C-alpha cells in the first residue's frame, strides 16, 4: 500500500512537473518489483509461441511454478506431446533442464532461452529490476496513446543479467511497464518486449494484489523475423505442495 501511495504521488507530480529525481526513479522500479512480488507461491499456465525465419511456428503449453521466498522456480512443459514432461528447475543460482526422452538432467545458464524461444527464464520469474539495475530518467514520451516515463537501466557491477542495458517505458497513469528494449554489451538492440495488458490477483499471503502481464510480445531485433508471444492464464497464488521444487517431482511428471 505504501508503494502504491508513493507511486501515485510520484506519477501525479511527474506528470505535472519537471523530471523525477533519482530517488523517484528508483522508487518506480521498486514499485514495479513490489507489485509483481508474491510472498507466497505462484502458479500460472503459460502458452509460448515462437515464430522463426525459415521454420514452422512452434507452440508450447507450460506451467510456471514459483516460490519467490526461497528463489525457486520451475517451468513444466505439457504440450506438444514431444515436449511433455520436459522442464526447467531453478534451485538457488542453478538452472537445470530435464529431458524425459533421455532421462537426463543438464545444468544450464540462468540466461537460458526457454524451449529455444526468445523468452528467457527472467521473463517468467520474479521482477528484480531495482536489485539488478541502476536506473536513469530519459524523459517523458508517448507510446501510442499512452503518456510514459522513459527509463534507462544499467546493470550493477557484479550482477549477472542477460542484458546489461535495458530501456523501459512505464505508463504514467498506471505505473505498468508497457515496453522494454534489451541491449547487448556492444550497445546493439537485441529485443523489444511489449506488455500490452496487465492483470492483478489478490494474494492472501501478501495481503495485497499481485500484478502479472497477461501477454508478452517479444521481438528479436537481430533476427528480425523471429518473435515470441507469451500468454499467461490461470494465475493461482495458493500454496503449492512442499515437494514440487525437486528433481524427483519433475521427473515424476513424465512417468
Amino acid at each position: 500500500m505504501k508503494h502504491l501511495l508513493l507511486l501515485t504521488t510520484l506519477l501525479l507530480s511527474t506528470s505535472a512537473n519537471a523530471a523525477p529525481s533519482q530517488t523517484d526513479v528508483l522508487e518506480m522500479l521498486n514499485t514495479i518489483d513490489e507489485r509483481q512480488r508474491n510472498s507466497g507461491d505462484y502458479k500460472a499456465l503459460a502458452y509460448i509461441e515462437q515464430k522463426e525465419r525459415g521454420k514452422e511456428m512452434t507452440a508450447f503449453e507450460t506451467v510456471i511454478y514459483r516460490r519467490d521466498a526461497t528463489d525457486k522456480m520451475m517451468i513444466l512443459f505439457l504440450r506438444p506431446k514431444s515436449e511433455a514432461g520436459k522442464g526447467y528447475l531453478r534451485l538457488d543460482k542453478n538452472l537445470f533442464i530435464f529431458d524425459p526422452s533421455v532421462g537426463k538432467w543438464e545444468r544450464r545458464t540462468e540466461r537460458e532461452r526457454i524451449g529455444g524461444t526468445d523468452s528467457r527464464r527472467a521473463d517468467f520469474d520474479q521482477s528484480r529490476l531495482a536489485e539488478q539495475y541502476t536506473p536513469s530518467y530519459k524523459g517523458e514520451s508517448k507510446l501510442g496513446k499512452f503518456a510514459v516515463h522513459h527509463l534507462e537501466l544499467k546493470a550493477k557491477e557484479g550482477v549477472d543479467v542477460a542484458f546489461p542495458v535495458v530501456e523501459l517505458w512505464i505508463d504514467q497513469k498506471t505505473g505498468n511497464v508497457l515496453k522494454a528494449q534489451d541491449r547487448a554489451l556492444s550497445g546493439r538492440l537485441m529485443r523489444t518486449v511489449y506488455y500490452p495488458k496487465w492483470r492483478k490477483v489478490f494474494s492472501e499471503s501478501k495481503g495485497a494484489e499481485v500484478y502479472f502481464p497477461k501477454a508478452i510480445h517479444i521481438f528479436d531485433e537481430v533476427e528480425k523475423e523471429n518473435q515470441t508471444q507469451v500468454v499467461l492464464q490461470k494465475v493461482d497464488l495458493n500454496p503449492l505442495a512442499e515437494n514440487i521444487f525437486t528433481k524427483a517431482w519433475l521427473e515424476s511428471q513424465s512417468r
Partner: protein
Amino acid sequence: MLGVIAFRNLRQGGKRTYLLGIALALVTGLLVTLMSLSNGINDSLVRAATTLAAGHVNIAGFYKSTPKESAPIVTDMAPIKAIAAANAPGLTRVIDRHRGWAKAISDTGSMFAGLYGVDVADEGALFAALQVASEADYQDGGRAELRGDPNRLGEPNSVVLFAAQARRLGVTLGDRITLRTETLRGMSNTVDVEVVAVMQNLGMMSSWNLLLPKQTILDLYGLDPNSTGAIMLYLDDIEQSPAVMEQVRSALEEEGYTVMDHDPRPFFSKFEVVSGQDWTGQQLDLTTWDDEVSFMSWILTAIDSVSFLLVMVLAIIIAIGIMNAMWIAVRERTREVGTLRAIGMSQRRVLAMFMIEATALGFIATTIGAGLSVALILGLEAAAIEIPVDAIRAILMSDTLHFVVSPTQILLSVVGFTLFAAIASIWPAVRAARLPPITAIQRTE
C-alpha cells in the same frame, strides 16, 4: 613335384578354378578398397583435426570465478606456453587460439558456429592447408575466379568462413554478419564482422568453425589479452603425442599448475563435469589431437565395422566355395589319389598336394585382386571424383573421394586370404589323404 601336380590340377579344374579365383580376387579387392577408404577418412580426419581444431598436443583448461561458472580459457598464457615449449621433444611450432561459440546471423540465414580467434602471423600452416573457394562454390551463379584473402584476418572485425557456411548464410565477400553470444558473465554481446575470405570445405569440421582475429574474440568476451582458449603444440612425429602430453603434464605440475586428470574427450564435452565440481580458479586440461576429435571416431568405427562384416560374410561364402570345390576335386580324383597312394605316396604328401593347390589358387587370385584394386584406387584418387551428397561429404570429411593405400595392409590381405583358402581346404584334403588305396581304386572302378 607336388607343386607341379597342384598347378596341373588347377588348370584342369577349368571353370571351377576361374570362378573361385575371381571370387577370391573380388573379396580381396573389396577389402583393400574398403581399408583404403577407411585410411583416407582417417587421413582426412587427422588433417582436418590438426589443421582446424587441435594441435598434436593441446593445453587448454577451465577458469572458474565461482564454483558454478566455468569458462574454457587459459589465463596467464605466456609462462605456460614457455614451459610447454621447453618440455616438448620434437616440437616444430607452438601457437594459441581463442575459442568461442556464437550464433552467426546474416540477412538471410543463421547458424550456430564455433569461433577460433587466430593470429594471422602464427597461422602460416593453417592458411597453407586451406584453399580459397570460388564464389561458384557457395553461390548459385557465382563467379568462378578465386577472390578473398585470408590474410585480411589481421584486420579488426573480419571473418573467414568455409564454403558450406557461406552458402547457408547466403553471404559472399564483403558482406557483414552479426555474431551473437554471451560473455563469461552471461551478458549478451554482439559484433558485426566482414567476410574477407571464403575457404574450400575441409569436411565436417569446417561446417561449424569460423575464423576471427584474436582481438575480436577478446572484445566479444571481454577477455584479458594474456588469456587464450588453447595452446597447441605441433610435433615432428604425431605418434609421439601421448608421450609428449605426459611429459608436458609433469612439467606443468612441477611448476605448481593444477592439471585435470586426462579425459580423452573434446573440451566442449567437459563443461557439465567441470561446472559440477566445487573449485574456483584455473585448472589446465591436456589432450592429444585424437581426444579432441574423439566424437567423430564413430565414423571410422562404423566404416570399419561394416567393412569387417561385409568381408567376413563374403569370406564365409568363399570358404564354403573352396571346401565344396575341393570336395568335388577329391571325388573326381579319387582314382588318382588311390593310384598315388598305391605307388607309395604318403598320406602327408597327398594332404600337402591338395593344400598346395588351394594355397596357390588363393595366392594368385588375391594378388591379382589386390593389384587390380590398387590400380582402381590410384585411378579414383587421381580423378578426384567429387562427392555429390552433402551428408556423405560430411561423413567422409572430404569433398572428393579420398583413399590412402597401405602396403602393409595389402600384404596382410593377400597373406590372410591365401591362408584362409589353405585352411578352408584342410578338411577335404585330410579326407582325401585318409582314403585307403584299395577303396579309392575300387570306388572309381
